[in-house]
């Protein structure tokens, strides 16, 4: 198994506390990702909930909140249907930069040999919607 890590950074004109709230509270997670079942709690499982094509609620992403070090570091174990039960790790690091916040996302534990068919199934349900949101966001 080849371990793959994705690292991304983003800057925000907002305090770390504000960015943190978007990563940990159920409503604010819903504004950019999917709403959580509950606000995130260290050591507890979490689920991000979406709506299927037939209107039913379904878990989109889930795992456990492994670490919450307010307002600096948040670590989730993370999986989606298409990963077929493989748990990966998502870490969020928040640094104060010039009055704003630098957010670094590290997604590790991805297996390069992941199944393509399952991926496509997931894309069918979710990808169009996210691209739509992105387009709206860039208008």
């Amino acid at each position, binding site marked *: 198994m080849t371990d793959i890590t994705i690292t991304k950074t983003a800057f*925000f004109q907002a305090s770390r506390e504000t960015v943190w709230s*978007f990563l940990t509270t159920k409503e604010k997670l819903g*504004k950019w990702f999917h709403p959580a079942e509950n606000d995130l709690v260290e050591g507890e499982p979490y689920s991000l909930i979406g709506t299927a094509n037939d209107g039913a609620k379904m878990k989109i992403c889930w795992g456990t909140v492994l670490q919450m070090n307010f307002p600096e570091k948040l670590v989730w174990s993370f999986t989606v249907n298409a990963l077929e039960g493989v748990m990966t790790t998502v870490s969020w690091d928040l640094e104060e930069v010039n009055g704003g916040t630098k957010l670094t996302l590290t997604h590790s534990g991805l297996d390069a040999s992941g199944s393509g068919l399952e991926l496509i199934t997931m*894309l069918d349900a979710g*990808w169009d919607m996210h691209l739509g949101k992105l387009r709206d966001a860039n208008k």
Partner: protein
Amino acid sequence: MDTEIQNTFRALADSTRRDILMHLSAKEMTIAEVSAHFDMTRAAVKKHLVILEEGQLISARRIGRETLNKLEPEGLKTAFSWISYFSEFWNVKLQNLQSAIEEEGKSKND
């Protein structure tokens, strides 16, 4: 944003287009041959083929009056790679997050 990957995902995110790919994996086909497998007009099939071509999943070549459509399996490789999938996934999420935070900033200043 990487438009090539985006086009590939867009092409794959539709069950009819995935069916078309399955048919093309057997052999090269004209639009008429592809259409014979579906309850759709040729124009509708043509639209799907254009999107598949934009996604670099098929190529089209003209032979006389016919256009033959061919599966390009290399195009699938990108989409099947987890790193490109999640890389794109997080690009979208982080951009959503940026707009969500900006929105909140605006409403506070109002």
